[in-house]
């Protein structure tokens, strides 16, 4: 859910201008890159099974540099959180709750995130398990209902704007898959550490297939120009589908489920961020950080004043963040190999869990 829950709402707006009709393929290429990142992260998790990201960085590079790397990770998570929550809030505000102030929707969003963060990663994971299947069912249903409206020839030419733009689109899409590095902050909670790589890879693969399908159907229904024009392509797709004359205008049902998925993703990112801050500061408990960080997150999510600004920031984020997500595990792995670091240490979440 970390991979697709917020990004898929507007991913097509970013991928289609780059790759054209082949945007869905670029999502798959992004998935392949994401699998590589997941593999690297899995190798890290296998090397430091009892460490959070800050712990790993401190073990490899020493405390000062490790904390600095931890702070860059917190900054990354904060941007994911700010942009993700803004995107979700906008989707609800523009399409459904036009008279509700967005700050109010954002506040409700963060109240729920705060509650989830208080309960901890186990609660988030267990609720995700319930909602993941519901979200997948909703997407399968949406796909089935979209088939009669879709025009497959709109996916031609198959390579879209050409090979180079396709790869460029793949790199943009990879930034969504790369968000899976957030898991490094809490992957130590896995019982079966050896399965970390596989679990992350499965998540990335499923997430990017969903994103590719959503993008492909968006193009088939709205065309390349249409999809670049609409604010939230997936939402527009949901608006157009129906079954007979009795199941129409069902987009709110879809959005309610997707909103829940986005909430859980952002709760996980929020948790990753505050536990990393606690690790950097050497705090025994992350909970005192929840309220201040939630206020920061709300403020961050309100920085883009307009939809246009939000998508500008989002465009910049997907352009560059993938390199950070690749560099982080690569640097840690190379450092660990050079220094021969392995295992050991304790971090705030472990202390908290006890």
């Amino acid at each position: 859910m970390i991979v697709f829950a917020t990004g898929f709402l507007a991913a097509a707006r970013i991928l289609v201008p780059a790759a054209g009709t082949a945007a869905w393929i670029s999502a798959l290429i992004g998935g392949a890159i994401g699998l590589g990142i997941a593999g690297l992260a899995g190798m890290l998790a296998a090397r430091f099974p009892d460490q959070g990201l800050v712990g790993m960085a401190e073990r490899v590079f020493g405390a000062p540099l490790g904390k600095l790397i931890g702070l860059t990770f917190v900054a990354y998570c904060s941007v994911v959180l700010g942009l993700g929550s803004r995107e979700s809030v906008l989707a609800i505000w523009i399409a459904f709750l036009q008279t509700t102030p967005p700050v109010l929707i954002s506040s409700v969003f963060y109240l729920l995130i705060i509650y989830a963060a208080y309960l901890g990663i186990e609660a988030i994971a267990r609720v995700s398990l319930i909602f993941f299947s519901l979200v997948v069912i909703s997407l399968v249903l949406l796909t089935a209902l979209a088939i009669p409206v879709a025009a497959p020839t709109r996916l031609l030419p198959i390579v879209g704007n050409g090979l180079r733009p396709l790869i460029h689109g793949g790199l943009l899409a990879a930034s969504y898959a790369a968000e899976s590095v957030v898991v490094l902050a809490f992957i130590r909670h896995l019982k079966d550490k050896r399965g970390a790589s596989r679990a992350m890879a499965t998540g990335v693969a499923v997430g990017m297939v969903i994103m590719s399908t959503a993008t492909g159907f968006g193009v088939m229904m709205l065309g390349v120009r249409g999809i670049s024009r609409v604010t939230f392509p997936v939402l527009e797709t949901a608006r157009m589908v129906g079954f007979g004359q009795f199941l129409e205008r069902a987009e709110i049902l879809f959005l309610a489920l997707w909103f829940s998925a986005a909430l859980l993703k952002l709760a996980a990112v929020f948790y990753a961020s505050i536990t990393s801050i606690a690790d950097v500061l050497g705090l025994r408990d992350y909970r005192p950080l929840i309220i201040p960080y939630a206020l920061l997150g709300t403020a961050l999510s309100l920085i883009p004043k307009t939809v246009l600004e939000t998508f500008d920031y989002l465009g910049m984020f997907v352009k560059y963040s993938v390199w950070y997500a690749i560099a982080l595990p690569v640097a840690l792995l190379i450092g660990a190999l050079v220094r021969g670091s392995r295992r050991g240490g304790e971090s705030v979440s472990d202390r908290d869990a006890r």
Partner: protein
Amino acid sequence: MSVTGMHARTQPSAAWAGQRQRRTVVVLVCLLVAASITGCRDAREIESVGFVLGLGIDETADGRIEVWAQVALPSAKPTEGEKQESWRVRSVGDTVWDAVRQLNGKSTKVLFRAHVRALVFGERFARGGVARALDALARDKQFRYKSWVFVTSDPVGDVLGTQTKQSSSAALFLDDIMRNTARSLTAPRSRFLDLLTSIEQPGDQPLLARVRLVEAEDVGGQPEGAAGGQEVGSKELRVEGSAALRGDRLVGWLDAEDTAMALMVCNRLEAYSFIMPMPGDEGGTIGFDMIRSHADTLFPEGIRTPRAAGQVTDVVIRVTGTVDIREVLSSEQLMSARSLERLEAGISRHLEAGVRRLIDFAQNRLGCDVLGIGECARHRLPAKVWEEDVAPTWHDQFRTMRIVPDIRFEVGKRGMTMQSPKPID
């Protein structure tokens, strides 16, 4: 991540657990209260909502925009005979949105546009460009992209005001026609979404269904005109043929047969019935149902290169398909292989002539690619080549290229009888 594989490391003390339970209860109570009062502040009863079923847009003689809305009037007594089921309202403004917002001031109900079934453009407005309406409608969060789009040469108000006994309003009648009789309709099933996507593609220009007001036919002996739905002398709606647009502007009308040919060439023809003279029997006729057709647009080799793509001069439209025999009024009963071969050749010639007429009309009168040839070229070309080199001049290329129809149809089923019943003289 496997939750079952996750450590349940958090083991709160009893006090902490109790506190957490109390908090959970407080949160749940807050959520329940919030959920139960949602919408109370600005609640609207269904009687106060005007469901817009049809929207008509035209241009007045002095260049202003007039908008018609056909609004359903929900009633607690649907069977009440004298109860008006729908209501029409008109407003005039400088732009489409200006006229739409003025509609609200003329209605005692809150106009709700999420159920618009039919969007009807008047001819004058369509000739001036339908894009003037698209922006306002595409931005509207209520308006549905699946609404049917029609163009009419008759007054839009009269079209939406037509009384029909088959449906409670003209808009619902048009919706029923498009949904239920698609297989026998010689009009494109044009939706708002298709219009949005095709006005931007020079190689896939829009064909919109045409709706006309025609004199209601005499229902011949049935009391009170019950069978046809209209009284004799009144007008009724007919969906037939299409309006051809170049970009967003109406450039001409296609009759039912031309429309069927255009849809066949674009692989959008669901079914088509036609009658033609029986080959080899002057005076005899034969009727068919087209049950399958498939069109391929064949380009010369090397079209993928920008230079070749910019100079397409020859295109072959190959259509293959099957027709079922539905009626034979001829002494020729088609009982030999040779007669069937002659018939198939005749069918192919008949349809080929129709396609040739359409090509001539599209190239010389309309000047736009309603055949979807450009769309087929776009599929074969790198997107950049199409967008930069071909699309800007496609209309001109289309007008000058040599398009050759190659139609090959075969006869399928001949019905439940091999020969016509033959009366004794």
